[in-house]
Protein backbone atom coordinates (compact mmCIF):
# COMPACT_ATOMS: atom_id res chain seq x y z
CA UNK A 1 0.00 0.00 0.00
CA UNK A 2 1.34 3.42 -0.91
CA UNK A 3 1.99 6.08 1.71
CA UNK A 4 -0.30 9.07 2.04
CA UNK A 5 1.06 12.14 0.25
CA UNK A 6 -0.93 14.57 2.32
CA UNK A 7 0.27 14.38 5.92
CA UNK A 8 -1.87 17.36 6.94
CA UNK A 9 -5.05 15.57 5.94
CA UNK A 10 -3.76 12.32 7.38
CA UNK A 11 -3.30 14.07 10.72
CA UNK A 12 -6.95 15.10 10.59
CA UNK A 13 -8.25 11.55 10.35
CA UNK A 14 -8.80 11.02 14.10
CA UNK A 15 -10.86 14.22 14.20
CA UNK A 16 -12.75 13.10 11.10
CA UNK A 17 -13.50 9.79 12.83
CA UNK A 18 -14.70 11.70 15.88
CA UNK A 19 -16.77 13.99 13.63
CA UNK A 20 -15.34 16.98 15.41
CA UNK A 21 -14.22 18.95 12.34
CA UNK A 22 -16.21 21.80 10.86
CA UNK A 23 -18.04 21.31 7.56
CA UNK A 24 -15.27 22.57 5.30
CA UNK A 25 -12.61 20.37 6.88
CA UNK A 26 -14.92 17.35 6.86
CA UNK A 27 -15.44 17.80 3.12
CA UNK A 28 -11.70 18.11 2.46
CA UNK A 29 -10.96 14.89 4.31
CA UNK A 30 -13.85 13.12 2.63
CA UNK A 31 -12.50 14.10 -0.81
CA UNK A 32 -9.05 12.94 0.19
CA UNK A 33 -10.32 9.57 1.39
CA UNK A 34 -11.83 8.94 -2.02
CA UNK A 35 -8.37 8.90 -3.56
CA UNK A 36 -6.08 7.71 -0.75
CA UNK A 37 -6.12 3.99 0.06
CA UNK A 38 -3.69 4.40 2.98
CA UNK A 39 -5.91 6.89 4.74
CA UNK A 40 -9.02 4.80 4.04
CA UNK A 41 -7.28 1.89 5.72
CA UNK A 42 -6.28 4.10 8.67
CA UNK A 43 -9.87 5.29 9.03
CA UNK A 44 -11.15 1.73 9.43
CA UNK A 45 -8.66 1.15 12.24
CA UNK A 46 -9.51 4.46 13.88
CA UNK A 47 -13.22 3.68 13.86
CA UNK A 48 -12.53 0.27 15.40
CA UNK A 49 -10.41 1.83 18.12
CA UNK A 50 -13.06 4.41 18.88
CA UNK A 51 -15.69 1.70 19.20
CA UNK A 52 -13.40 -0.12 21.62
CA UNK A 53 -13.47 2.71 24.13
CA UNK A 54 -13.73 1.19 27.57
CA UNK A 55 -17.15 1.22 29.10
CA UNK A 56 -16.65 2.54 32.58
CA UNK A 57 -19.30 3.05 35.14
CA UNK A 58 -20.23 6.71 35.37
CA UNK A 59 -18.64 8.39 38.35
CA UNK A 60 -20.87 9.49 41.21
CA UNK A 61 -21.45 13.09 40.17
CA UNK A 62 -23.30 14.09 43.34
CA UNK A 63 -20.49 12.84 45.54
CA UNK A 64 -17.86 14.71 43.53
CA UNK A 65 -19.83 17.94 43.65
CA UNK A 66 -20.33 17.64 47.40
CA UNK A 67 -16.56 17.44 47.85
CA UNK A 68 -15.75 20.49 45.74
CA UNK A 69 -14.64 23.79 47.28
CA UNK A 70 -17.19 26.54 47.54
CA UNK A 71 -17.27 29.09 44.78
CA UNK A 72 -14.86 31.97 45.57
CA UNK A 73 -17.49 34.71 45.77
CA UNK A 74 -20.20 32.54 47.19
CA UNK A 75 -21.10 32.02 50.82
CA UNK A 76 -18.26 30.74 52.93
CA UNK A 77 -14.95 32.35 52.07
CA UNK A 78 -13.23 30.01 54.52
CA UNK A 79 -11.69 26.91 52.94
CA UNK A 80 -13.65 24.43 54.99
CA UNK A 81 -14.09 21.49 52.91
CA UNK A 82 -12.57 19.26 50.54
CA UNK A 83 -9.58 17.16 51.23
CA UNK A 84 -8.26 14.77 48.67
CA UNK A 85 -9.28 11.19 49.04
CA UNK A 86 -5.67 10.22 48.49
CA UNK A 87 -3.86 13.17 49.91
CA UNK A 88 -0.37 12.27 48.79
CA UNK A 89 2.22 15.02 48.71
CA UNK A 90 2.36 16.14 45.14
CA UNK A 91 3.65 18.86 42.90
CA UNK A 92 0.83 18.37 40.48
CA UNK A 93 -0.88 21.69 40.95
CA UNK A 94 1.37 24.14 42.68
CA UNK A 95 -0.97 27.02 43.33
CA UNK A 96 -3.48 27.41 46.08
CA UNK A 97 -7.07 28.50 45.71
CA UNK A 98 -7.82 32.14 46.40
CA UNK A 99 -9.69 31.29 49.55
CA UNK A 100 -6.68 29.52 51.01
CA UNK A 101 -4.38 32.36 50.08
CA UNK A 102 -6.58 34.78 51.95
CA UNK A 103 -6.19 32.74 55.09
CA UNK A 104 -2.43 32.92 54.90
CA UNK A 105 -2.21 36.69 54.57
CA UNK A 106 -1.81 38.96 57.61
CA UNK A 107 -1.55 37.20 60.97
CA UNK A 108 -2.50 39.32 63.99
CA UNK A 109 -1.88 39.12 67.73
CA UNK A 110 -3.78 41.25 70.25
CA UNK A 111 -5.29 43.11 67.34
CA UNK A 112 -1.89 44.18 65.97
CA UNK A 113 0.06 42.76 63.06
CA UNK A 114 2.68 40.28 64.18
CA UNK A 115 5.49 42.14 62.43
CA UNK A 116 4.72 45.31 64.35
CA UNK A 117 4.80 43.51 67.70
CA UNK A 118 8.09 41.87 66.79
CA UNK A 119 9.63 45.23 65.82
CA UNK A 120 8.47 46.84 69.07
CA UNK A 121 9.93 44.02 71.15
CA UNK A 122 13.22 44.34 69.28
CA UNK A 123 13.50 48.06 70.05
CA UNK A 124 12.66 47.56 73.73
CA UNK A 125 15.21 44.76 74.15
CA UNK A 126 17.98 46.66 72.38
CA UNK A 127 17.31 49.84 74.39
CA UNK A 128 17.20 48.00 77.70
CA UNK A 129 20.43 46.20 76.97
CA UNK A 130 22.25 49.43 76.16
CA UNK A 131 21.08 51.04 79.43
CA UNK A 132 22.33 48.05 81.40
CA UNK A 133 25.69 48.25 79.71
CA UNK A 134 26.06 51.91 80.53
CA UNK A 135 24.97 51.42 84.14
CA UNK A 136 27.37 48.62 84.94
CA UNK A 137 30.35 50.24 83.29
CA UNK A 138 31.05 47.29 81.14
CA UNK A 139 33.02 49.36 78.76
CA UNK A 140 36.22 49.75 80.64
CA UNK A 141 39.24 50.81 78.80
CA UNK A 142 42.60 50.26 80.32
CA UNK A 143 45.31 52.84 80.15
CA UNK A 144 47.44 50.51 78.13
CA UNK A 145 45.01 50.50 75.23
CA UNK A 146 43.73 54.06 75.12
CA UNK A 147 45.62 57.32 75.36
CA UNK A 148 45.19 58.39 78.92
CA UNK A 149 45.78 61.39 81.04
CA UNK A 150 49.47 62.05 81.03
CA UNK A 151 51.77 63.76 83.33
CA UNK A 152 53.34 66.92 82.08
CA UNK A 153 56.69 65.25 81.91
CA UNK A 154 58.24 66.53 78.77
CA UNK A 155 61.29 65.81 76.74
CA UNK A 156 62.82 67.89 74.04
CA UNK A 157 63.68 66.21 70.82
CA UNK A 158 65.73 67.79 68.13
CA UNK A 159 64.90 66.77 64.64
CA UNK A 160 65.92 67.92 61.24
CA UNK A 161 63.44 70.21 59.63
CA UNK A 162 62.53 70.21 56.01
CA UNK A 163 64.36 73.51 55.46
CA UNK A 164 67.66 72.01 56.46
CA UNK A 165 67.91 73.65 59.90
CA UNK A 166 67.01 72.13 63.18
CA UNK A 167 63.85 72.50 65.13
CA UNK A 168 63.02 71.62 68.68
CA UNK A 169 59.80 69.74 69.29
CA UNK A 170 58.29 69.13 72.64
CA UNK A 171 56.92 65.65 73.06
CA UNK A 172 54.93 64.51 76.00
CA UNK A 173 55.82 61.16 77.45
CA UNK A 174 53.87 59.22 80.02
CA UNK A 175 55.32 59.10 83.46
CA UNK A 176 56.39 55.67 84.45
CA UNK A 177 55.25 56.13 87.96
CA UNK A 178 51.64 56.73 87.11
CA UNK A 179 49.41 53.78 87.81
CA UNK A 180 46.91 52.63 85.31
CA UNK A 181 43.59 54.40 85.60
CA UNK A 182 40.35 52.91 84.58
CA UNK A 183 38.48 55.13 82.20
CA UNK A 184 34.80 54.65 82.07
CA UNK A 185 32.06 56.19 80.04
CA UNK A 186 29.81 56.04 83.07
CA UNK A 187 29.47 58.76 85.75
CA UNK A 188 31.74 59.84 88.60
CA UNK A 189 30.25 57.23 90.90
CA UNK A 190 32.13 54.64 88.91
CA UNK A 191 35.49 55.86 90.27
CA UNK A 192 37.00 55.04 93.60
CA UNK A 193 38.15 57.71 95.99
CA UNK A 194 41.80 57.13 95.23
CA UNK A 195 41.22 57.30 91.50
CA UNK A 196 39.40 60.61 91.82
CA UNK A 197 42.11 62.08 93.99
CA UNK A 198 44.76 60.96 91.57
CA UNK A 199 42.92 62.56 88.69
CA UNK A 200 42.39 65.84 90.55
CA UNK A 201 46.01 66.07 91.58
CA UNK A 202 47.15 65.58 88.04
CA UNK A 203 44.76 68.23 86.84
CA UNK A 204 46.15 70.65 89.37
CA UNK A 205 49.66 70.06 88.08
CA UNK A 206 48.48 70.71 84.52
CA UNK A 207 49.47 74.27 83.79
CA UNK A 208 47.42 74.43 80.66
CA UNK A 209 44.18 73.65 82.34
CA UNK A 210 41.35 75.85 81.27
CA UNK A 211 38.62 77.24 83.40
CA UNK A 212 36.26 74.70 82.01
CA UNK A 213 35.86 71.53 83.97
CA UNK A 214 37.05 68.65 81.81
CA UNK A 215 34.73 65.77 81.38
CA UNK A 216 35.98 62.89 83.47
CA UNK A 217 35.35 60.26 80.88
CA UNK A 218 37.14 61.97 78.01
CA UNK A 219 40.79 61.13 77.62
CA UNK A 220 42.95 64.22 77.52
CA UNK A 221 46.51 64.33 76.29
CA UNK A 222 48.38 67.41 77.30
CA UNK A 223 51.03 68.81 75.05
CA UNK A 224 53.60 71.47 75.40
CA UNK A 225 51.10 74.27 75.00
CA UNK A 226 48.86 72.76 77.59
CA UNK A 227 45.77 72.65 75.35
CA UNK A 228 43.76 69.61 74.87
CA UNK A 229 44.18 67.94 71.55
Amino acid at each position, binding site marked *: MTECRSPVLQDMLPDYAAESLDGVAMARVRDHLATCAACSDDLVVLQ*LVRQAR*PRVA*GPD*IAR*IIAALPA*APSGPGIEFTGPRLV*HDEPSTSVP*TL*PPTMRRQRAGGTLFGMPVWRIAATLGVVIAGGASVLVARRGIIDVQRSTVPNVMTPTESATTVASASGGTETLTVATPASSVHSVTVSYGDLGDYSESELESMISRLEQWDGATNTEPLPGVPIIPNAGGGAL
Partner: protein
Amino acid sequence: MIDATQQEDSRIDGSLITQWKAGDQRAATAIVERHAEALARFAGRLGVTEDIDELVQDTFIRAFSAIDSFRADSSLRTWLFTIERRLVIDRRRAEARRGHGIEIDDMHAASGFDALDTMVADEAAERVAGAMARLTRMQREVFVLRVQEGRSYKDIAEILGSTEGAARVHYHNAMRAVKEFLHD
Protein backbone atom coordinates in the same frame (compact mmCIF):
# COMPACT_ATOMS: atom_id res chain seq x y z
CA MET B 1 -6.26 22.20 12.28
CA ILE B 2 -9.83 23.35 12.61
CA ASP B 3 -11.63 21.59 15.40
CA ALA B 4 -15.06 23.08 15.83
CA THR B 5 -16.07 20.85 18.71
CA GLN B 6 -13.07 21.68 20.85
CA GLN B 7 -13.52 25.39 20.21
CA GLU B 8 -17.13 25.22 21.30
CA ASP B 9 -16.19 23.13 24.33
CA SER B 10 -13.57 25.69 25.33
CA ARG B 11 -16.07 28.52 25.02
CA ILE B 12 -18.63 26.73 27.20
CA ASP B 13 -16.05 25.71 29.79
CA GLY B 14 -14.66 29.23 29.95
CA SER B 15 -18.12 30.60 30.56
CA LEU B 16 -18.81 28.04 33.29
CA ILE B 17 -15.54 28.81 35.04
CA THR B 18 -16.36 32.51 35.01
CA GLN B 19 -19.78 31.77 36.50
CA TRP B 20 -18.26 29.60 39.21
CA LYS B 21 -15.74 32.28 40.10
CA ALA B 22 -18.66 34.69 40.42
CA GLY B 23 -20.18 32.42 43.03
CA ASP B 24 -22.47 30.17 41.01
CA GLN B 25 -22.02 26.68 42.44
CA ARG B 26 -24.26 25.23 39.73
CA ALA B 27 -21.54 25.98 37.22
CA ALA B 28 -19.29 23.53 39.07
CA THR B 29 -21.97 20.89 38.72
CA ALA B 30 -22.14 21.50 34.99
CA ILE B 31 -18.35 21.25 34.65
CA VAL B 32 -18.27 17.96 36.53
CA GLU B 33 -21.08 16.54 34.44
CA ARG B 34 -19.29 17.52 31.23
CA HIS B 35 -15.93 15.92 32.05
CA ALA B 36 -16.33 13.26 34.75
CA GLU B 37 -17.01 10.39 32.37
CA ALA B 38 -14.08 11.24 30.10
CA LEU B 39 -11.82 11.38 33.15
CA ALA B 40 -13.03 7.98 34.32
CA ARG B 41 -12.46 6.56 30.85
CA PHE B 42 -8.99 8.06 30.65
CA ALA B 43 -8.17 6.64 34.08
CA GLY B 44 -9.08 3.21 32.77
CA ARG B 45 -6.83 3.76 29.78
CA LEU B 46 -4.01 4.74 32.13
CA GLY B 47 -4.31 1.34 33.73
CA VAL B 48 -6.19 2.40 36.84
CA THR B 49 -8.50 -0.40 37.93
CA GLU B 50 -9.37 0.55 41.49
CA ASP B 51 -10.87 3.65 43.05
CA ILE B 52 -11.52 5.39 39.75
CA ASP B 53 -14.29 7.41 41.38
CA GLU B 54 -11.89 8.69 44.02
CA LEU B 55 -9.33 9.52 41.37
CA VAL B 56 -11.85 11.54 39.37
CA GLN B 57 -13.01 13.28 42.54
CA ASP B 58 -9.44 14.17 43.51
CA THR B 59 -8.87 15.50 40.02
CA PHE B 60 -11.81 17.87 40.27
CA ILE B 61 -10.86 18.99 43.77
CA ARG B 62 -7.35 19.83 42.66
CA ALA B 63 -8.65 21.57 39.58
CA PHE B 64 -11.18 23.73 41.40
CA SER B 65 -8.70 24.51 44.15
CA ALA B 66 -6.24 25.82 41.58
CA ILE B 67 -8.62 27.20 39.01
CA ASP B 68 -6.69 30.49 38.89
CA SER B 69 -3.71 28.67 37.44
CA PHE B 70 -5.78 27.35 34.53
CA ARG B 71 -4.62 28.97 31.32
CA ALA B 72 -7.22 29.46 28.65
CA ASP B 73 -4.74 28.60 25.90
CA SER B 74 -5.55 24.94 26.49
CA SER B 75 -8.92 23.34 26.95
CA LEU B 76 -10.28 22.55 30.38
CA ARG B 77 -10.45 18.84 29.56
CA THR B 78 -6.78 18.85 28.57
CA TRP B 79 -5.95 20.48 31.88
CA LEU B 80 -8.08 17.95 33.77
CA PHE B 81 -6.38 15.07 31.97
CA THR B 82 -3.01 16.54 32.93
CA ILE B 83 -3.97 16.73 36.59
CA GLU B 84 -5.44 13.23 36.57
CA ARG B 85 -2.40 11.72 34.93
CA ARG B 86 -0.11 13.34 37.50
CA LEU B 87 -2.31 12.01 40.28
CA VAL B 88 -2.00 8.53 38.79
CA ILE B 89 1.78 8.88 38.69
CA ASP B 90 1.79 10.12 42.29
CA ARG B 91 -0.30 7.13 43.33
CA ARG B 92 2.00 4.71 41.59
CA ARG B 93 5.04 6.27 43.19
CA ALA B 94 3.39 6.08 46.58
CA GLU B 95 2.53 2.44 45.98
CA ALA B 96 6.08 1.76 44.81
CA ARG B 97 7.41 3.34 48.02
CA ARG B 98 5.15 1.03 49.99
CA GLY B 99 6.73 -1.87 48.19
CA HIS B 100 4.07 -2.73 45.67
CA GLY B 101 6.67 -2.29 42.95
CA ILE B 102 4.47 -0.96 40.20
CA GLU B 103 6.30 0.04 37.04
CA ILE B 104 6.17 3.75 36.39
CA ASP B 105 8.57 3.94 33.50
CA ASP B 106 6.78 5.51 30.53
CA MET B 107 8.71 3.42 28.06
CA HIS B 108 7.41 0.12 29.35
CA ALA B 109 4.10 -1.48 28.60
CA ALA B 110 1.56 -1.30 31.37
CA SER B 111 0.48 -4.53 32.94
CA GLY B 112 -2.70 -2.88 34.19
CA PHE B 113 -4.03 -2.55 30.68
CA ASP B 114 -5.19 -6.16 30.75
CA ALA B 115 -8.09 -5.00 32.87
CA LEU B 116 -9.62 -3.54 29.76
CA ASP B 117 -10.32 -7.03 28.54
CA THR B 118 -13.27 -7.14 30.86
CA MET B 119 -14.61 -3.86 29.57
CA VAL B 120 -14.80 -4.57 25.88
CA ALA B 121 -17.80 -6.27 24.43
CA ASP B 122 -17.20 -7.89 21.11
CA GLU B 123 -14.41 -9.69 19.31
CA ALA B 124 -13.27 -6.69 17.28
CA ALA B 125 -12.94 -4.63 20.38
CA GLU B 126 -10.97 -7.39 22.04
CA ARG B 127 -8.58 -7.44 19.11
CA VAL B 128 -8.11 -3.67 19.38
CA ALA B 129 -7.48 -4.00 23.09
CA GLY B 130 -4.94 -6.72 22.37
CA ALA B 131 -3.20 -4.51 19.85
CA MET B 132 -3.04 -1.58 22.22
CA ALA B 133 -1.73 -3.75 25.02
CA ARG B 134 1.38 -4.30 22.92
CA LEU B 135 2.15 -0.61 22.72
CA THR B 136 4.52 1.15 25.05
CA ARG B 137 2.86 3.22 27.73
CA MET B 138 3.68 6.47 25.96
CA GLN B 139 2.46 5.21 22.59
CA ARG B 140 -0.77 4.01 24.14
CA GLU B 141 -1.41 7.22 26.03
CA VAL B 142 -0.83 9.27 22.91
CA PHE B 143 -3.01 6.95 20.82
CA VAL B 144 -5.85 6.97 23.34
CA LEU B 145 -5.78 10.72 23.71
CA ARG B 146 -5.64 11.30 19.97
CA VAL B 147 -8.12 8.70 18.76
CA GLN B 148 -10.47 8.00 21.63
CA GLU B 149 -10.49 11.37 23.32
CA GLY B 150 -9.98 13.54 20.24
CA ARG B 151 -7.17 15.65 21.71
CA SER B 152 -4.86 17.62 19.44
CA TYR B 153 -1.11 17.00 19.42
CA LYS B 154 -0.63 20.27 21.26
CA ASP B 155 -3.00 19.12 24.01
CA ILE B 156 -1.38 15.70 24.16
CA ALA B 157 2.06 17.26 24.53
CA GLU B 158 0.76 19.34 27.41
CA ILE B 159 -0.92 16.41 29.14
CA LEU B 160 2.09 14.14 28.83
CA GLY B 161 4.71 16.82 29.43
CA SER B 162 6.20 16.19 26.02
CA THR B 163 6.40 17.96 22.65
CA GLU B 164 4.03 18.03 19.73
CA GLY B 165 6.66 16.42 17.53
CA ALA B 166 7.23 13.58 19.97
CA ALA B 167 3.48 13.05 20.32
CA ARG B 168 3.12 12.87 16.54
CA VAL B 169 5.89 10.28 16.27
CA HIS B 170 4.35 8.18 19.04
CA TYR B 171 0.97 8.35 17.33
CA HIS B 172 2.28 7.17 13.96
CA ASN B 173 4.34 4.38 15.55
CA ALA B 174 1.28 3.29 17.53
CA MET B 175 -0.93 3.38 14.43
CA ARG B 176 1.54 1.25 12.49
CA ALA B 177 1.78 -1.28 15.33
CA VAL B 178 -2.00 -1.51 15.77
CA LYS B 179 -2.55 -1.97 12.02
CA GLU B 180 0.08 -4.72 11.83
CA PHE B 181 -1.52 -6.55 14.75
CA LEU B 182 -5.03 -6.26 13.34
CA HIS B 183 -3.97 -7.36 9.85
CA ASP B 184 -2.11 -10.47 11.09
